[in-house]
């Protein structure tokens, strides 16, 4: 797997043989993707892990206060309720049935009780049969029969009993404390005292609100015994599933009927049927963190966006550089190849020229000798008419041979000159010579194609120091291109007056300006934009597309400039400006 990835990357990064846009596009995409992935993945992982961690910590943090609150409330409530029961129990044991059945005494006892302890509402004595034989309080409950009531049965069984909250006669919540007494004489009776839940409510709800915790009591069926800020008033149903019953405080995370997440601490209160509930909505605890989190999320998103942006820019630049560098390298190789091709052609040409020169020389001498002999012969007066006619013809023929040799000699010498000057060197030279020479090369081709080659050389052209061979290459390329442009449609379509003109003049501040003008097919602005690019050619079947690229390079390296103007169907002008002396420092091409 790793090997495959490595190989893929190596393939993308190696030097290509040909430049294709797609290759670099996909390279760019891959690099950006990799960079973003490598940067963003750890970021995301860290964020997710941190978030989870922190949430977990927050939860745990939430548990403790709720737990503590429940325990504290549990302690306080058990104390209070225990005291309530103990008070009644004390009364039941301090007084006998006889004492309590005496109503005035019962009343006095009740008043004393009320003066010390807040909340007691009424008091009643229930005999063994369940009848309330004595009663003190605001209601008419004397004589009520409680036989068979569950609270009475509970009291008789447990000895002491605290009821759950119920709605009393006056419409507000009450509890009943009942204590059963079995006297030595066998009398069994129950003391029943009702108390309101105000104090209970107070104790329950004193601390909770500070900590956003709702503390309340419920009975075993989930009916509220005290008011709950979350679930309603006393005696309404809590609406939540009952927690597991245990005296030990238990903390759970619960989702209630309304879908709220809650932290619930619960415990039973000994000696009662109450369950204490301390409820804290998780959302409240989490809210501050959520606020911060959403800000952090913004930062995260911003960060990721920034990473993506920077990656794209950087990688874009990098890959562009890479592409440019590859292109330059490929072009350089091509140029080198081209150069080498030219130099081998040059060597070949030189070889051929030399080989041809020798037989040419022989032909020349023999024809010359023949003419010499002919002249001698005619000089000796051998004068028959026919004879002199033949002699004349012979002489003319021999002269023809000699002049043809002269022509051939011109060609071979030109070839040799071209080949020799392939080597780069700097020398003082007359630019007119090079121009003339170059045009000489192309003259035949121009004539064949019906194009007239013209020269407009100024009189006062100074000498310049430059490289002969390279200048020759440049002019050959430019004039050749001009010829191709004019004769583009084939010699049959060349219009009369088609010309290629090479002009040369000197301007003091600028240098030597050589212009190649033609009235050929011209170039569109689109083509002009790309004209100096390597591998760009408008000639469908010939040319490497390197001519202008190389020409540009040569001219720049010689310290000059090259400009092209063109108009479609009108023609083109290429201007080469050369300094009289080339620059010392190599020019950045």
């Amino acid at each position: 797997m790793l090997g495959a990835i490595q190989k893929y990357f190596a393939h993308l990064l190696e030097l290509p043989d040909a430049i294709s846009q797609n290759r670099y596009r996909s390279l760019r995409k891959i690099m950006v993707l990799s960079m973003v992935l490598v940067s963003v993945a750890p970021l995301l992982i860290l964020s997710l892990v941190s978030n989870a961690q922190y949430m977990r910590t927050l939860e745990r943090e939430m548990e403790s206060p709720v737990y503590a609150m429940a325990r504290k409330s549990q302690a306080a409530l058990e104390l209070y309720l225990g005291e309530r029961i103990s008070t009644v129990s004390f009364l039941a044991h301090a007084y006998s049935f006889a004492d309590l059945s005496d109503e005035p005494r019962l009343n006095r006892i009740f008043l004393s009780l009320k003066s010390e302890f807040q909340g007691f509402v009424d008091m009643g004595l229930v005999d063994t049969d369940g009848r309330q034989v004595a009663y003190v309080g605001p209601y008419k409950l004397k004589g009520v029969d409680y036989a068979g009531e569950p609270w009475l049965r509970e009291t008789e069984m447990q000895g002491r009993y605290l009821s759950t909250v119920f709605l009393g006669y006056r419409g507000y919540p009450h509890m009943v404390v009942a204590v059963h007494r079995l006297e030595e004489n066998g009398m069994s009776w129950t003391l029943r005292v009702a108390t309101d839940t105000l104090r209970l409510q107070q104790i329950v709800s004193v601390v909770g609100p500070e900590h956003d915790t709702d503390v309340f009591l419920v009975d075993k069926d989930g009916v509220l015994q005290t008011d709950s800020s979350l679930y309603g008033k006393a005696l309404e149903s809590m609406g939540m599933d009952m927690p597991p019953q245990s005296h030990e405080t238990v903390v759970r995370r619960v989702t209630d009927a309304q879908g709220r997440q809650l932290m619930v601490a619960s415990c039973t209160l000994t000696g009662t049927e109450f369950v204490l509930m301390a409820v804290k909505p998780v959302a409240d605890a989490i809210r501050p963190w959520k606020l911060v989190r959403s800000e952090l999320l913004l930062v995260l998103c911003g960060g990721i966006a920034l990473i993506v942006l920077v990656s794209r820019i950087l990688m874009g630049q990098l890959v562009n550089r890479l592409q440019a560098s590859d292109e330059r390298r490929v072009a350089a190789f091509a140029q080198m190849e081209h150069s080498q091709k030219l130099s081998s052609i040059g060597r070949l040409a030189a070889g051929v020229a030399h080989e041809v020169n020798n037989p040419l020389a022989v032909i020349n001498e023999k024809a010359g000798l023949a003419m010499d002999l002919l002249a001698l012969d005619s000089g000796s007066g051998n004068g028959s008419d026919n004879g002199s006619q033949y002699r004349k013809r012979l002489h003319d023929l021999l002269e023809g041979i000699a002049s043809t040799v002269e022509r051939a000699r011109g060609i071979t010498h030109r070839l040799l000159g071209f080949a020799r000057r392939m080597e780069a060197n700097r020398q003082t030279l007359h630019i007119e010579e090079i121009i003339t020479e170059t045009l000489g090369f192309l003259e035949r081709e121009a004539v064949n194609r019906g194009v007239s080659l013209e020269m407009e050389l100024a009189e006062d052209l100074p000498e310049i120091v430059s490289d002969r061979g390279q200048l020759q290459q440049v002019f050959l390329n430019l004039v050749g291109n001009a010829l191709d442009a004019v004769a583009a449609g084939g010699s049959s379509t060349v219009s009369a007056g088609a010309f290629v003109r090479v002009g040369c003049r000197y301007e003091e501040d600028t240098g030597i300006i050589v212009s190649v003008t033609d009235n050929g097919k011209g170039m569109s602005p689109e083509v002009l934009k790309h004209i100096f690019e390597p591998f760009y050619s408008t000639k469908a079947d010939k040319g490497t597309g390197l001519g202008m690229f190389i020409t540009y390079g040569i001219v720049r390296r010689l310290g000059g400039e090259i400009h092209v103007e063109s108009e479609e169907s009108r023609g083109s002008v290429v201007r080469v400006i050369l300094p009289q002396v080339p620059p010392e420092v190599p020019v950045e091409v």
Partner: protein
Amino acid sequence: MALRVLLIDDENEFVDTLAERLELRGYKPSIAYSGQAALQALRAEKPDVVVLDMLMPGMSGEETLRRLKNMYPNLPVIVLSGHGMVQDDGVGTADQAFACLTKPLALSALLETLAAAVRAAAVDAEGDTP
């Protein structure tokens, strides 16, 4: 007095024909087909002027020229080369050769150069003799 010209060239046909043409014009040509042969001929007899082809197998034109000049420093040498410019031979031929002509040879040019070379040598010789 007929001028003695030593023609040094490995192209037999060429040099033979050239010699014949010079003879017709009153010169006294001698031929050597190689550098070695030329030096031998030079030891036997000193010519008035030498025509030397630079492109020869065996002993090169440059070598022949050097040795020749060692033997007879004042002997004018007309060099034949396939090129045009003396400088391009690159071996300092310019110092040693009187002139450089190209092949194929225009006879008129050769005749003029021969005359000029001999005249120059005569001037030099007059200058040398005390």
